[in-house]
């Protein structure tokens, strides 16, 4: 790429993507801002249909005005509903705990927006993600951000090599305070804008309300059962429960703290137990995306580090490649709350090697020395 290259920047209206656009523009690139209209903010939670997203699109447009770049809004509402929001709801209904941000990156951002960027004659698509793309001997590599507190590589594990070759992450080498300082330097009104919430279409974290609206028939009440077989109470729908959850179970009077250890949507059953019952050291993953050397994790086991949720540090594991994009992950140390529906992301030091989705009902407790062929023990 040279200074005349056209780069499309995915502008959300937040500080990170705004700084990305201003930074690339200051470096002389031909920058075009695109903002995705993904859902109707009113319709996501209330009955009223309120056209136009409002503040975030307004902010993106004002930043583009300030920087002096063209800016457009692209409408991906239909795809986002089907491929992110509906799948989010269906995942909860299946008893999983989904990560919709990964789905959004896979579909809206790195498929639809990437195509739009190519349609506009761009040489690259840049986002404000905190993650590093480093040129390697066999194409672009994905690496963790310099700032470990901001690293967003967990949400980008499904990026394919072809996508990675086209995208750029100019903020991956910066800390958040450095990015905000650039926002101030460039005179962007969003420089001090608070960070966005985790899931953009779930206001106030009330995800059950969103599922109720998307899938009104989903809430089927059932029993809350202790591992020892006792029925402890009733619940109003499995969508309200996540493996590892402790609060809000509504079952008191037990001597030890109780955690959700299993969610069974077929029987509308939530199983609870003591913290030790959450410990797992092996599980299956599916839809594996591989960004490491070779064609995938070795059948005989590839030693890696894995993250099972965004907020935890990587831990040692061995990944055994299987057929059909599946793999078996054996952790060096048993871990509490291996949650179906979450991503298991592979790392080799700072480099991201891809990852997969934690499958249901494959959670097993196996001896550390047993590497392969372990039988799943569904609780």
């Amino acid at each position, binding site marked *: 790429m040279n200074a005349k290259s056209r780069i499309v920047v995915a502008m959300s209206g937040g500080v990170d993507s705004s700084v990305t656009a201003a930074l690339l523009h200051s470096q002389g690139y031909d920058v*075009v801002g695109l903002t995705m*209209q993904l859902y109707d903010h009113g319709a996501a939670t209330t009955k009223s249909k309120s*056209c*136009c*997203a*409002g503040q975030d*699109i307004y902010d993106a*447009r004002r930043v583009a*005005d*300030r*920087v*002096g*770049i*063209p*800016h*457009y*809004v*692209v*409408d991906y509402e239909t795809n986002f509903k089907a491929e992110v929001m509906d799948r989010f709801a269906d995942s909860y209904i299946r008893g999983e705990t989904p990560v919709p941000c990964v789905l959004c990156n896979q579909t809206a951002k790195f498929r639809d927006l990437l195509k*739009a960027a190519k*349609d*506009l*004659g761009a040489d690259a698509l840049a986002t404000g993600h905190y993650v590093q793309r480093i040129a390697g001997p066999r194409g672009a590599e994905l690496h963790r951000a310099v700032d470990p507190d901001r690293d967003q590589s967990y949400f980008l594990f499904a990026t394919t090599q072809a996508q990675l070759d086209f995208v750029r992450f100019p903020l991956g080498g910066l800390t958040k305070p450095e990015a905000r300082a650039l926002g101030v330097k*460039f*005179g962007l009104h969003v420089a001090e804008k608070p960070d966005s919430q985790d899931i953009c279409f779930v206001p106030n974290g009330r995800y059950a309300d969103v599922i109720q609206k998307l899938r009104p028939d989903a809430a089927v009440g059932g029993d809350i059962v202790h591992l020892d077989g006792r029925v402890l109470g009733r619940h109003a729908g499995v969508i309200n429960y996540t493996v590892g959850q402790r609060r809000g179970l509504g079952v008191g009077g037990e001597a030890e703290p109780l955690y959700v250890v299993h969610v069974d949507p077929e029987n509308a059953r939530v199983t609870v137990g003591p913290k030790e019952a959450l410990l797992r050291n092996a599980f299956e993953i599916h839809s594996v995306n591989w960004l490491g050397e070779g064609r995938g994790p070795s059948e005989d086991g590839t030693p890696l580090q894995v993250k099972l949720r965004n907020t935890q540090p990587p831990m040692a594991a061995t990944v055994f490649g299987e057929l059909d994009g599946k793999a078996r992950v054996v952790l060096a140390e048993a871990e509490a709350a291996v949650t179906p529906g979450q991503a298991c992301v592979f790392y080799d030091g700072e480099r991201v090697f891809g990852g997969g989705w934690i499958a249901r009902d494959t959670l097993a407790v196996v001896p550390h020395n047993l590497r392969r062929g372990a039988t799943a023990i569904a609780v």
Partner: protein
Amino acid sequence: MVLKAPMTESNLCYLDHNATTPLLPQAEAAVRESLAAFGNPSSVHATGRRARAMVEDARERLGSAVGASAAEIIFTSGGTEANDLALRGFAAAQGCKSLIVAGIEHASVLAAAAGATVIPCDARGAIDLSALEEALKSLPRPALIALMLANNETGVLQPIDAAIALARTYGAYIHCDAVQAFGKMPIDFSSLVVDSMSLSAHKMGGLKGIGALLVRRGCEVSPELVGGGQERRRRAGTENVTGIVSFGTAAGEVPRLLADTPRIRALRDQLESSLRRIAPQVNIYGETAARLPNTSCVALANVTSETQVMRLDLAGVAVSAGSACSSGKIAPSHVLLAMGIPPAEAKSAIRVSLGWTTKEADIARFIDAWQPLTLNAAA
């Protein structure tokens, strides 16, 4: 950092005159001159009287341009307010018991006529007169019909004379939105016996923020804005003197604008035949219907309106698509959907609209910028 435009306006190939057209030089001169007369037209003193005289001069000029008497003209903030005043204020004052609107009306009509019976149109974009008659037969009387003179997206002229005849037969009132037609075809309010008519200045060379509702002598209007007694107690608020001056002056130029229409029609036809030569598969909506001379609504299958508008804009060519909502998101045109065009096809349509500044070089430039899009269509 200085706000800078990526391209100066004089470099632009502007083919979006139905959205707004540049201020006519005569109107600009009159506006500049009027700025010194700062008075309030309601004031008794000489300063006020000078402002009032300017308002009334402009009213008379507008009246002679459209064949209306001064007393029949209510200045409004634009076409939207004029339509609102007709569908609410006029309908209320005349005791209308039902509302009938064409499905291809402007959003300001459709939104102001909540609960109205919506009349479909044929594939060529003209209202279905038999459906209109059915509605008139069955609905409580008197009804108020809203039918535009020319559609803003396709340019297709509506059978207003036949609709007027039906209105008379069934004792209905008829409101005509002539916003897009004014300055592009002859209009005579006195011989075209509609009961009210909306006009807007910025579509024909005046300033934004000024329009008018013509109301036939003998018909009443309940004001939507109340307070002062301006506009013969039909629209309160201090007059927009500058805007009114621009409107009156531009109206005085209507004969010249109309004399220019054969030239504009020839350019439009040249544009359409070039498009057909490059891409024989294009759909030109309303092509065989009576149309405004300046408007062309064209679909290029498999290339979204979004992509076309963005690509053309990046090449310095301004056109529009569908009805842009305030976010800038492009929804498929409700006009094309009302014509029975499948949504997938409607999503690939753009509107090219010529005006008094359009030159042959603009058509050539548009064709040069549009031609590469046909490669996307083939891909």
